[in-house]
């Protein structure tokens, strides 16, 4: 049993419970134990543009919670992972650490921060995942959306190739679904500019949606609640703006993985997906 502290952040526990549910379900299946982080707050990322130090201190405080339990942190959100990783690096910097201690916090054990998907790839491994697959989703064609902060900035992560990322594709392929190679794979979802210029953000999201449509895929697979907001919640807006019909389901990776583990569609919270994946379910013989 591998134990990790689970960092939920703001969006997942309130707006993306299906992501959380499915992540918990597949983790359980893979003998990963999640320990709840009592007192964990926002990761700090939203304040980075306002004041980097403040955001780092908020992030570092969250890390301190896991450090006290001497547990490595798993995060479900790309941005949270980046923010916490940055703070984890900063904690090795004396100047920052002094400031951190001034607030009465401590960092007793050095711990690492990883995205859940990275843990699946590195700590669990493709082979073990393969052996857990009970129902191969061979009929599905999907595009894997990495999101920016999954492998970038590479100086924080040192994971995957920031130019030619491949780990998430491999993970998708494990389920039997085929991860289609497509253009502009590393393109940003636009989430970060949503609050500044909605039209621009929707245009950015539309780019990948249109690529997905051109590729005729069954779904877009996401690993970040932020990206999902752009591709799923704002899909209608993109459709209106560009006068096009997409109707592309956006699944969180643990949902897809859970289906391949043979879980019931309710166990992975599929009824909470805003773009109904009915066609997809039909394809894999799970239509209700």
């Amino acid at each position, binding site marked *: 049993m591998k134990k990790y502290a689970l960092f939920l952040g703001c969006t997942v526990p309130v707006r993306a419970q299906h992501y959380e549910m499915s992540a918990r379900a597949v983790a359980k299946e893979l003998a990963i134990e999640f320990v709840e982080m009592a007192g964990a707050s926002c990761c700090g990322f939203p304040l980075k543009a306002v004041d980097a130090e403040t955001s780092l201190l908020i992030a570092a405080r969250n890390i301190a919670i896991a450090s006290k339990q001497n547990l490595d942190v798993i995060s479900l959100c790309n941005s949270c992972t980046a923010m916490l990783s940055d703070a984890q690096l900063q904690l090795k910097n004396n100047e920052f650490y002094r400031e951190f201690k001034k607030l009465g916090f401590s960092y007793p054990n050095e711990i690492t921060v990883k995205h859940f998907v990275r843990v699946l790839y590195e700590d669990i491994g493709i082979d073990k995942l393969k052996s857990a697959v009970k129902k191969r989703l061979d009929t599905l064609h999907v595009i894997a959306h990495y999101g920016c902060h999954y492998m970038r900035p590479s100086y924080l992560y040192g994971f995957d*190739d920031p*130019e*030619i990322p491949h780990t998430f594709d491999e993970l998708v392929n494990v389920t039997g679904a085929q991860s289609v190679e497509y*253009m*502009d794979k590393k393109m940003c979802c636009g989430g970060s500019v949503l609050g500044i210029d909605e039209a621009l953000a929707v245009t950015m999201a539309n780019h990948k949606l249109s690529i997905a449509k051109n590729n005729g895929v069954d779904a877009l697979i996401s690993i970040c609640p932020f990206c999902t907001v752009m591709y799923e919640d704002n899909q209608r807006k993109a459709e209106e703006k560009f006068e096009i019909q997409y109707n592309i389901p956006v699944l969180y990776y643990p949902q897809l993985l859970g289906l391949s583990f043979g879980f019931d569609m309710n166990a992975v919270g599929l009824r909470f997906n805003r773009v109904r994946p009915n066609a997809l379910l039909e394809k894999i013989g799970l239509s209700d």
Partner: protein
Amino acid sequence: MRVLVCTCKDKIKLTNLDLGPDVKIEQYFDLCKEKPAIDSDEKVVIAGCSPNLLETLFPNLNCEFVNLYEHIVLIGHPIEKARDLIAAAVEKMKVVTPIKAKIFTIEKKSVVVIGGGVAAIEVASQLAQNGVGVDLVERSPFLGGTVAQLDRLYPEGTPYSHTLMPQIAKMLESKNINYYFNTEAKDIKGRIGNYDITLQTCSRGVIDCTHCGKCVDVCPVEVDDAGKMRKAIYYVPTYPDIYAIDFNACTKCGECVKVCEGKIELEDKIAEQNIDAGAIVIASGLNWYDVDKVTEYGYCRLPGVMKTLEFERAVASGVLKPKKVVIIYCAGSRDANHLPYCSKICCFLGLKEAKLVLDRYPETQVYVVAMDMRSFGTFEYFYNKLREKGVTFVKGKPSEVIKRNDSLVVRTEDLYTNELLEIEADTVVLSAGFVPDTATFDKLGIKLNGDFPVLFENADLGNTALPRGIFTAGAATFPAGVADSLVDARKAAFSVLNLFRQDKIETKQPNAVINEDLCSICRMCIGTCPYGALSIVEEKLKVNEELCMGCGICSITCPVYASQLELFNPQGLSHQIRTLIKKGDVLALLCRWSAYNATDKAAYDKYLYPENVKIIRVPCSGAVDPSHVMDAVNNGAKGVLIGGCYPDACHYARGNFRAKAREQILKQNLDLLGFSRDIVRLEWIGKDEANKFVEIVKEMNK
């Protein structure tokens, strides 16, 4: 001890000088003319005019100079000051270690030239013609190096053979050269005048050859040799006239042996032999940067993306006939993630490839995407010509190369219009930089500075940072074109000839000496030596006399004074300061290469400064110890000025930065001990900045 005092033809009037019974004072009317004999082992003090002059007249002596003319007479200070200065110099000389002459005997007068490209050929040829025996050691089976791989040379676009073949012919006229092909220098021992080199030779496969070419016809193994296809048994039309087997590709099927009119042995064995030499010339040339590391440009990943060499060979041999070509400059160059430097020659290589393809196929559309076009000198004409030929130059650095609908797309910003630009093409050429082949330098333990074997920011150091018997030629130290390599090769040949005129070289340059009774091998000093002259040999700290340049930085770094610079040890300077400095004085410890010269200029230009300013000449600002400052302060000095060269301009590369770090921490220390932080000041003073020097000492005197 002898103190030689010069009146400088009666300009310095110093009388009644008595420094005790141990010190013998000799007065001269004109020291320059009279030139008294001084034993080379003797310690003396010479007082007269500036050491800048006296040193040229009395070189290589165990001598401390006292500058009476520029520092007292011309500046109008009372002559009584001379007594203190001389007495202090005497105290210093009492405790310094005298210089031991270093004699390097040139026992062997033959040369090993490592490499087989244009530079190596030129060096070998020039030396052999001058009667020097040469052993030429080439790693590959054929001569010609990088040049022999090319189709043509820039800027004219002449075939490489125009340059290389006459050069080889000229070399072959000399009988003084032994050739070692398929050979590497595995180990190099010894020192100037007597090197022992172990050579390791792999077999060529072809023992005897009639050049019939039948072996090539039957060989089933195709090899892609940088864009050009050849067989596993092959020939490069340079020298020697014998085919060779590429054992990395050969399957030993034996087909060639069956048809051979000469003799082939399919056994790849390794043989070793030792040769000796008095000097080594490293002409090992350069390697192409592995451009597949620049992943965003898709080399190896996207078909149609190639390196310049591959492109050149493919177009020249007719294998490739592109319609639309994008040549991306600086692929990995001037890039912190790859090669941080500019390789100097790739801008022309890129232009050459553009011309090559247009010469063959004038209808080709060619785009060159470059951050900057560095077409210095006459290359500007070349650049002009290519624009007139219709090449489109884009200013920018492409972000990535992608594949879209079966064609390559180069994404960039066009900096002229400030708009995003996507160029579709069938061929993308990556003009990458070069890395010198440093294998030989590694074997010699020669310190690399970043990526290069010698320091480049300091012209003098470029020559002195190599052991005295090692020379470089061509692109071994930095990417260079053919013309530059040839000039450099002749320079190297001249240096070797110059060395071999002598049977021994004697130097009396001060060196660092290690007191093994004190050295605890703490290694604090090793990294601070700008020349890599310090190393641990058999668990003892050793100074390489071929490399030590006498800066004294290690002796100041050493926490126990186990390292001592001859003629200038820290204790000597300490004695000098304690004798010289009285309450209220200002001490100026000035680098001999820069700040000290400014004081001479101050005298000539009549920038006057107070008489309590006392000047001591030091080899480098990095050769001053914080305890020297403490000594002066303890004696009541108002201030201590350390004058050094400007940043990056230090004669000893990094001495002034060492001084800076010491000064900064020392200031804090002195602050806590109740002194003003400015009681010690490290200032950069150029050799002509007399006014700056004077202003500073005046400020410190307040």
